[in-house]
């Protein structure tokens, strides 16, 4: 417990508690539409937080995180549909498989000094590989898609993740909070210090006795395994999976936009970014709906321009400057 609150100011704790309390109470006040928006936001906050372990902490840019989402989704969905395995059990093999795939990618790249942008290319290549592979993987529907049975559930079946949006909201909310706490603790652990050192200067990190290869691998495997849990939610919330959508590069980019806009390497960046981005996108959708415009691509152009603006004018992201405004800027990074 001491470690948990170490270096966090009282003011920050109060604001944090307030923030989570509002989120916890939100389903009591919002309508169904807003609830779905909130689920989307928290989903991106969670996935962004997981991605941030690799990029924000260890400095390894992954542009293929849709791969881990997809693996988590397909593995648990297939186990549930084919063998009736509860997703709560299915998530174990899902995490193991995603982690193993992450390990393979990491091994290929880090063993041979593939880093920076070339590492990013490799991650995209693997995601694309999976996309095309699943397109031809007829056991789980191939390109025609894979569907989970949907019925009207009068009762929430938490065991099989079948139920109301409110149930999903609380699950994603819990995941977001847990991921936040895990990342907070990681930053205060040996691994966290080592990751930041590797991010800032791999040569210096090595000279200080850090096994750079091993800690990069830890980051990739952990990030991949955690991200796959996001895929479980994706599968059981949307109930349909198409390789062209699940593994597509634009899914990977969606995941990383939140943390980039919010602030790479910070704990709140992914959350703030997800709120801003999804909030603005939904606002834009609403405006277009009112104006009667229905054009595909508008949302993505908007995403692109947002990203462009943030990268050009707020290279640190929104959170660091917001943190100053809230008067939380003292000492330790992140929180």
């Amino acid at each position, binding site marked *: 417990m001491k470690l948990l609150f170490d270096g966090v100011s009282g003011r920050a704790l109060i604001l944090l508690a307030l923030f989570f309390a509002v989120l916890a109470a939100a389903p009591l006040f919002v309508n169904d539409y807003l609830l779905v928006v909130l689920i989307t936001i928290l989903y991106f906050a969670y996935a962004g937080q997981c991605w941030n372990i690799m990029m924000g902490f260890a*400095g390894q840019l992954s542009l293929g995180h849709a791969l881990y989402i997809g693996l988590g989704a397909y593995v648990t969905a297939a186990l549930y549909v084919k063998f009736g395995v509860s997703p709560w059990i299915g998530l174990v093999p899902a995490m193991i498989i995603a982690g193993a795939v992450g390990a393979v990618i990491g091994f290929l790249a880090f063993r041979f000094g593939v880093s920076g942008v070339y590492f990013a290319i490799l991650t995209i290549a693997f995601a694309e590989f999976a996309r095309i592979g699943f397109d031809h993987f007829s056991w789980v529907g191939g390109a025609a898609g894979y569907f989970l049975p949907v019925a009207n559930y009068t009762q929430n079946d938490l065991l099989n993740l079948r139920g109301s949006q409110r149930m999903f909201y609380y699950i994603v909310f819990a995941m977001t909070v847990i991921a936040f706490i895990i990342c907070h603790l990681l930053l205060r652990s040996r691994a966290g210090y080592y990751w930041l050192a590797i991010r800032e200067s791999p040569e210096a990190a090595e000279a200080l006795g850090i096994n750079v290869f091993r800690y990069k691998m830890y980051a990739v495997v952990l990030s991949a395994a955690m991200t796959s849990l996001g895929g479980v939610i994706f599968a059981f919330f949307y109930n349909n999976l198409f390789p062209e959508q699940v593994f597509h590069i634009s899914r990977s980019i969606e995941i990383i936009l939140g943390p980039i806009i919010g602030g790479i390497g910070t704990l709140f960046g992914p959350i703030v970014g997800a709120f801003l981005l999804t909030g603005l996108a939904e606002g834009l959708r609403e405006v277009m709906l009112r104006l009667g415009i229905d054009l595909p691509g508008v949302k993505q152009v908007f995403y692109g321009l947002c990203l462009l603006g943030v990268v050009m004018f707020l290279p640190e992201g929104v959170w660091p400057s917001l943190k100053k405004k809230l008067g939380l800027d003292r000492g330790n990074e992140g929180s």
Partner: protein
Amino acid sequence: MTTDVILKIAISGVLTGLIYGLMALGLSVIFGVVRVVNFAHGEMMTIAMYLVIVAFNALGLDPLIMLVPISAVLFALGYLMQRAIINPFINRPEHSQFMLLVAVALVIVNALLLIFGPDSQGVTTSYSFDSFDVGGIIIDAGKVYAAIAALIVAVLLFAFFRLTLTGKAIRACADNYNGALVVGLNVKRLYALTFGIGAACVGAAGTMLMIVTDVTPAIGPAYTLLAFVIVITGGLGSMPGAIIGGVLIGLTEALGGFFFTPSAKSMFSFAILVLILLFRPQGIMGRKAA
């Protein structure tokens, strides 16, 4: 009979590969000199491809005629992009440059989607159905023309870098940035020029590709990835490597598509990428780093 078919497929793959090579050459040149990874490369190529569509549909102009004008338009686009948005990022961290170009790519893909819609479009030229018969092997005429044009552009580019003063100045920048500054080269202008040249390559490649294939707005990222796979396969910073890599990947995709299924063809180029990273990370033509 089967050998003939396989040979036909192989030749067709090599011809397409030459066009891929030209596209990758653009990426290689930009990276080699400006040290920025152009993640919007394939997307820029789709711009060129849609310019072909517009010129063809509106004015009936053949892609071969459009080769020079479209390359010129892409040159201008590349030049301006470097000047306006990429130049302030030259000294920023790698991932920050990368993200900038991801953003540019995202905007291009979806702006094209807004303008042209999601459906695939193509052109039918007067020689679309012509073919050459070389000793019983049938080869599409359009592919031959396109590949020859791509090869000519590549050769001109080699000559430019070897023989002209500007080309040598650009290579000097690539070798030694500070040295280039010291001897009074206008590095900013040369960088913009290089980005322009890289974009012109991809413009030429895109124009030629339209003779061979169709275009959708969403295809951009796939070409970006393909260009990267080729450049890594051929060897970073090696101009001949880009062409050789292009041919190799073109060949692999054609044969892979033939023996398995066309929709899975890019899996084979990824497989090559992984093999290269495992056994020869410096690429086919690349030199081992010290």
